């Protein structure tokens, strides 16, 4: 069946609503508007306003309410329209959702799923272009998912809802229109492991979410230049799948992390540090990083493009670590 990423997310939400009466979707304009990115289009008509619950502009309030509803036995899917607005709800996410279980000595778990759009690339300017999923991955108690494929867009949600702890799902805005084949019966997928999207032996290109397409494209170009790149899709940023990462690097001895977040203190730094700590003596080159320029993302198309990871920069970084100057 042909499906867009958007439709895959929607199918995942619909699956969940059908499977479990405790599930409901809540957020700004998820209902009457049809979802700001049209993800939830039609669900209001199908499930009614109690379960497709429009909220006022009150990010801290409704995210906190989602936490409370999860504590109260529901399985809320809270949509924050974009990651940019999630900063308003950060106290609730860090100090309540992520902390309650530990702080209560194991008594209160928070089976909450928060979905949000992330990323740049659509000329939305500094306040609407953050990629903060790697930043969120710093917080113990959270699980961070970054679906890059149609299967994951549809299947991660249900697994996340079965998780007793808070899960944040980041959907890159540039993926919604991506289309492909998706099995009609596509169902839950695991959320514990990274996936090799392209096997290869010369260099590990490690990425996730919105940059996966560019990395795959770069791998093709590298193949033409005689570099056989392995593409590892992390799928989950917290906890990281160390086994898969180290297995790939053990094979290739060279790696480049591609991440749309800012470089300093981003998830790419953690990957670089972990790989080096665990495979220092096997590495043939330091871990490369291709990230966004450390600037508030500008509006102008050429400036935004210059700020973001590009196929060209990925290829160049891979060539550098493989000593294939091109």
């Amino acid at each position: 069946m042909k499906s867009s990423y958007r439709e895959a997310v929607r199918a995942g939400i619909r699956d969940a609503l059908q499977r479990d009466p405790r599930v409901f979707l809540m957020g700004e304009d998820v209902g009457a508007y049809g979802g700001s990115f049209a993800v939830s289009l039609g669900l209001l008509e199908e499930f009614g306003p109690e379960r497709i619950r429009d909220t006022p502009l009150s990010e801290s309030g409704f995210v906190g309410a989602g936490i409370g509803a999860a504590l109260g036995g529901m399985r809320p899917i809270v949509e924050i329209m974009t990651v940019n607005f999630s900063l308003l709800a950060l106290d609730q996410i860090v100090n309540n959702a992520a902390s309650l279980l530990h702080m209560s000595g194991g008594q209160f778990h928070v089976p909450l799923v928060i979905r949000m759009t992330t990323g740049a690339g659509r000329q939305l300017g500094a306040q609407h272009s953050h990629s903060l999923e790697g930043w969120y991955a710093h917080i113990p108690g959270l699980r961070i998912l970054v679906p890059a494929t149609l299967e994951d867009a549809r299947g991660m949600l249900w697994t996340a809802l079965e998780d007793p702890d808070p899960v944040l799902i980041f959907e890159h805005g540039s993926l919604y229109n991506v289309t492909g084949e998706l099995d009609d019966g596509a169902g839950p997928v695991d959320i514990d492991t990274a996936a090799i999207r392209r096997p290869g032996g010369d260099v590990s290109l490690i990425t996730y979410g919105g940059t996966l397409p560019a990395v795959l494209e770069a791998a093709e170009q590298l193949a033409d230049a005689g570099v056989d790149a392995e593409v590892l899709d992390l799928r989950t940023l917290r906890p990281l799948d160390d086994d898969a990462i180290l297995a790939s690097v053990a094979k290739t001895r060279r790696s480049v992390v591609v991440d749309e977040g800012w470089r300093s203190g981003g998830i790419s730094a953690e990957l670089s540090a972990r790989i080096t700590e665990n495979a220092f003596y096997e590495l043939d080159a330091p871990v490369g990083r291709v990230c966004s320029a450390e600037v508030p993302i500008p509006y102008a198309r050429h400036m935004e493009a210059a700020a973001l990871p590009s196929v060209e920069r990925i290829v160049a970084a891979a060539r550098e670590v493989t000593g294939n100057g091109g």
Partner: protein
Amino acid sequence: MTGPLSPSLRPRDPGHGRHLLLQMLRVRRLEERCVELYSAAKIRGFLHVYIGEEAVAAGVLESLSADDTVVATYREHGHALLRGVPAGAILAEMYGRVEGCCRGRGGSMHLFDAATNFYGGNAIVAGGLPLAVGLALADKMSGRPHVTVCFFGEGAVAEGEFHESLNLAALWDLPILFCCENNLYAMGTALVRSESQTDLALKAASYEVSAWAVDGMDVLAVEQAARTAVDAVRSGAGPHFLEFRTYRFRAHSMFDPERYREKAEVVAWQARDPITLLRSSMEENGQLTADDWTQLQSEAESEVAAAVKFAESGTLEPVEDLTRFVYSERRAP
């Protein structure tokens, strides 16, 4: 201040009055002991006691049933105790012992208890309000006839979370009772210096939430107001807000030198000590004998003494358990 300066408190019967007196005494004795134990370095971290405000928790919690839900703040020992968390588990928690209600991980500001639907204990001012809204939403969506009661100080009213929470509760017509403990100060900040509108019930009413102010030193007035509000909430009348006008007799925390208020003000309020008020009225009304009073005191004393003993004999959580409960050990039910 609301209500007459010396209300004539008349419980519906002596047993009821003695019960409320005992509840307040239990909190008072526990808190006094906490202060001593803090000075003796048995309790650490931040400690905020409830001395002077006991009538609020006593009156409100009296009006709830076991299935109802309670959310409180870092000044919540009394709420936990009166909700049914054993005094021993509370003190052991402050001792940092694994027998504590949170294995010693929470401490004074983070008492939680699943058995009594006591959802804490929150050290972020106003952080509990959105949570309480969600708990009430879950009840409403599940068709459960429960009430969520959310306590917070008047300082929390300035936070954006207060605003967002009241609006959500009202918009969605949720079964929640907001209990504002207005003790006139947020640390050193007097209400008039934190709110342009100091009539908090009026503020709450601007969200179309039924709201009124209550003399928080009169436990019977508190109980009556809470019962009326809880019944209304339970019967589907939507969120309610009560402002309890009260006062903390002690410092904000153990670190507070109290530079921001006059001793005379404290003394004036102490004349309206909620325990004394009830005790005196009952004595005057012939509802409390000297023996009764001695008996109640010793009951409270011995409960606290036993709790200290329990805490003292508590053990430490094994250090290897440090990383347990960051994530759950089982899948969700």
